């Protein structure tokens, strides 16, 4: 059991609901995306360092992080950006195409603190065969302070067509 848990923690996370692609006609300005909650651990930061090639020590070596004036190791900015990509692509579904993710960093986040990703529809533009949905997206730590804010654009294929 402990072996399985270990593999689970390092391997593919479990998908709970088979993802479906959103019908563009059901999307309206003001719609909120289902929140995505992450529980980052130092282990995850090490995995992301390996996967992304960002080996800056402040993301996994506590001594270096503290020497740099940080409270401890901090979550990669690119990991928070990737979570926002996940927030949008999980909501829009597998046939959607995430065109743009834009983020600004307003604060640091640490492993052990839950991180909450949220989004809201700000624009819906039907086009030829695709509808482009504009979103406001953000991430916040346990105090509710938005440490990552940004925008995203996702294309939804027209209903019925692929």
């Amino acid at each position: 059991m402990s072996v399985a848990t270990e593999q689970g923690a390092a391997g593919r996370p479990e998908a709970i609901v088979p993802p479906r692609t959103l019908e563009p006609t059901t999307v309206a300005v003001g719609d909120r995306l289902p929140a995505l909650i992450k529980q980052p651990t130092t282990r995850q930061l090490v995995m992301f360092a390996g996967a992304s090639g960002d080996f800056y020590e402040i993301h996994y070596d506590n001594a270096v992080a503290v020497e740099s004036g940080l409270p401890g190791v901090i979550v990669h900015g690119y990991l928070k950006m990737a979570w926002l990509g996940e927030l949008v692509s999980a909501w829009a579904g597998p046939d959607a195409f995430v065109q743009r993710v834009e983020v600004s960093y307003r604060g640091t986040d640490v492993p052990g603190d839950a991180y909450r990703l949220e989004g809201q529809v700000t624009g819906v533009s039907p086009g030829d065969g695709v509808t482009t949905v504009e979103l406001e997206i953000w991430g916040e730590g346990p105090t509710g302070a938005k440490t990552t804010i940004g925008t995203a654009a996702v294309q939804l294929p027209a209903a019925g067509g692929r």
Partner: protein
Amino acid sequence: MLSLEAAVEKARQYVGLVGPAVSMTVERTTIRRFAESIGDPNPLYYDEEFARATRWGGIIAPPTFLCLLLPPLPAPEIDFGTVKLNGGSVFESFRPVRPGDVIIGQAEYADVQAKQGKGGGMLIFQGRTRYTDGDGHLVAIGTGTGIQK
């Protein structure tokens, strides 16, 4: 330490500087590891059978996947301020990244601006990386903002 005016003037000399191109061949394993490290369970990144039934006809990479290909860009040493911060980034994609793709990334020192903030002056740098495929088509553009103050 340089004044803000002198610092931005020196930094401007580097605008347009282009670093060496680097390339990678995207593998299914690279995509899977990236998705696992985010904790993203989407079967589109792992499950060939599921992915084949989608519009893409096979596995694709998560939206900001190409952030793992960071081509080197010689950063100018500007004697200004004490802190360097990552201000943010933009990732624009023009098509999904797939296993087997050869992606070439090349970074450019795109812009520098001087700005007066509450705590004094700051330099705001922009680096831009263009990602193209083996046929020379644009796949994605990544833009990063760095702040020195």
